[in-house]
């Protein structure tokens, strides 16, 4: 069928030969696994496809994204299930300063021992560092790297204290948005729309025929700001 070179690997606990160059997900498909559950973007962006793998001769198990890890000779790999995590219930709009409430919302954060087992992030977030900042009350600092988190939950799966750093991060992220007042530029625009500042112009546009509309749009676009 193909002149592709075959490699031997261990896939989901089964020794098997597959063509080289496939990703773990593709190797699973190729060998008859009907995987749907661990698949999302196929671009390394969504975190649905986490895998644990041991490379030939390596001493340490590594973690990664199955849609981006390419299989190699002697690789031993499994897909990981979506790890269960405690998620807190909270209502941000009822809190004055959500940052300061972190110890109530996620009390387990105080139990973090700094063991760094959570540093397995496929997006290279230094989770241990983020948790340290959260523990010490530097919430703004802890929030910064969270923007890269896609909630794959790998960090939580490694935590001996059953902390879910990705949910802690999400809480901080949502809290951070509520710390700022409404942006002045947005507020101004909302008022203008409410006050009907654009109404006359809309009426003008509505009355135009096709050619007129094109001309209208050209004018609007070229108007100096």
């Amino acid at each position, binding site marked *: 069928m193909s002149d592709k070179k075959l490699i031997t690997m261990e896939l989901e606990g089964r020794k098997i030969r597959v063509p080289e160059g496939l990703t773990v997900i593709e190797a699973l498909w*190729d060998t008859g696994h009907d995987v749907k*559950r661990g698949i999302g973007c196929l671009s390394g962006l969504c975190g649905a496809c986490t895998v644990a793998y041991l490379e030939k001769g390596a001493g340490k198990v590594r973690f990664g994204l199955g849609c*981006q890890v*390419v299989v190699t000779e002697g690789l031993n790999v499994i897909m990981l299930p979506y790890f269960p995590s405690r*998620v807190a219930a909270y209502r941000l709009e009822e809190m004055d300063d959500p940052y300061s409430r972190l110890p109530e919302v996620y009390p387990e954060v105080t139990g973090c021992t700094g063991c760094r087992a959570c540093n397995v992030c496929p997006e290279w977030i230094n989770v241990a560092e983020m948790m340290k900042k959260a523990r010490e009350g530097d919430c703004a600092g802890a929030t910064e790297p969270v923007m*890269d988190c896609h909630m794959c939950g790998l960090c939580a799966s490694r935590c001996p204290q059953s902390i879910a750093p990705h949910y802690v991060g999400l809480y901080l992220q*949502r809290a951070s*948005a509520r710390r700022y007042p409404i942006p002045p530029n947005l507020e101004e625009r909302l008022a203008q729309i409410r006050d009907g500042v654009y109404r006359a112009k809309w009426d003008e546009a509505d009355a135009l025929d096709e050619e007129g509309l094109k001309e209208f749009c050209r004018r609007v*676009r070229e108007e100096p700001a």
Partner: protein
Amino acid sequence: MYPEDLCRLIERVDATRAERLKQDVPRLTEAEQADLLKKYHPDYKDCAFRTLRVGPNKGERTTHEIADLLESFGDLDHSKVPLTPAFDTDVLVLGGGGAGVTAALFAGQTGARVLLATKLRLGNSNTIMALGGMQASVDRADSPLRHFADTLSAGKFAGRQELVRTMVEDAPEVVKWLLDTGVNFDRDSSGNLALKKGGGLSAARILSIGDHTGLNIMKVLKDELRRDDKIEISEFTPAVELTTNERGQCNGAVLFDLGRRRFITVRAKAVVLATGGSGRLHFQGFPTSNNFGATGDAIVLAYRAGARVEGLDSFQYHPTGVMFPDHMVGILVTEAIRSLGAHLVNVRGERFVNELETRDAVAAAIIRECERGGGVTTAGGRTGVWLDIPVLEQIHGAGVLRQRFRALFRQFMRVSINIVRRPLLIYPTLHYQNGGILIDVNGETSVPGLFVAGEAAGGLHGRNRAMGNSLLDIFVFGRRAGVAAALRRGENPGAVGFGHVHDYYERLRALRISSISKSPTLFPDFIVDKL
């Protein structure tokens, strides 16, 4: 890591960088652009399209891939589907991307019972993949009218005026809602929303959250869904058919439980279809930037129920899809890279188009360059041109790439390609469905009770969607559809049935069509043709 032959070719890119920086590539005139599109843009390749013989859009043009799905019998055996609903709800939302989740949240707020069913895990969607940002006219120098004019112009005036107006007028309010929900859009030093410029926009209008805009919005909305216990979520249960009552109104859907491999019939007072786009149909063999579940299911479901579609002969091919390494083919390189001044470079190290032309024109120019021998071919047999990203470090200072494009940098460091030093090999990738199921300003289709929101909907973006308008679209029309659908909750949905499918199949038979297809597609077959 690049193999040796590509490394040698990259030397040309490095050697010509300084010269190219001094060069000014002229913009295309209107006539030149029209000619370029006509000769090289995939939308103009006549042999890739055909005329539909059946249904509400009979006589209109669409791609063979869509026509094949619409002009065939689905493989669902309707006699095996239980007609007694397993669930009864007010609003059934199909699709767990940005549009679906927004519709569910707003329907839920009115007090309606909501069931949201989605194909994969909640949130696995094109929405989380949106990198660049979202449009909303909030700058002093901008206005909803400008946004309106830019959107219509980008769409070559094929978009519907009332839909565009609705989108641009709702935009600031939708931004406020997102902020209130806890979405942390980037701000500038005075607390204003930070705004970026985008291709074809006459003002700075792109809001973003680092280079992970969609993901960070989706994370928050998904979290918000958790707290509304009137909203039920059903994952891994794609919709495979809509149901209608004796009056032809849409009143539910059949879901397929992927785990149990069983059908579930859901009855509802109104249905919101928000199942996204169709990149995984790989039109004309193009690779795609879309997620695994983007198989255009909404088109099949709604068309059989009698809904009109619009603009399904127009797709967006994003100019910069990855061509190397093989396992990353089709993945998107964000437009922001070009906006900042990266060069497109052929095998000889020359620029061949002004990189700031609109997406369709840049895509066509790349195809032309490859067809006339300016491309670079990989061992995997794929051809593309270089996207000179390292040049940005010279224009904007060392460190800009690692700082502003963290996600992109990581994506390629994983395969030992350092974008600070190496160009990427790219070619247009199938990115967005410009058309879809025609909606009105409340998201309702020509079938009563059937609402559509997001990429599945049509009529808004004309023949080319402007950057950042899709994220906006899904929240504006997700909200409107959710609210309008919930208003139907007092109605009697009647009995669920497949009268519309039987009628549709009758018409196929009358045309002596007998082909059977897996429609809706649900999942692409083995995706990569590496074997």
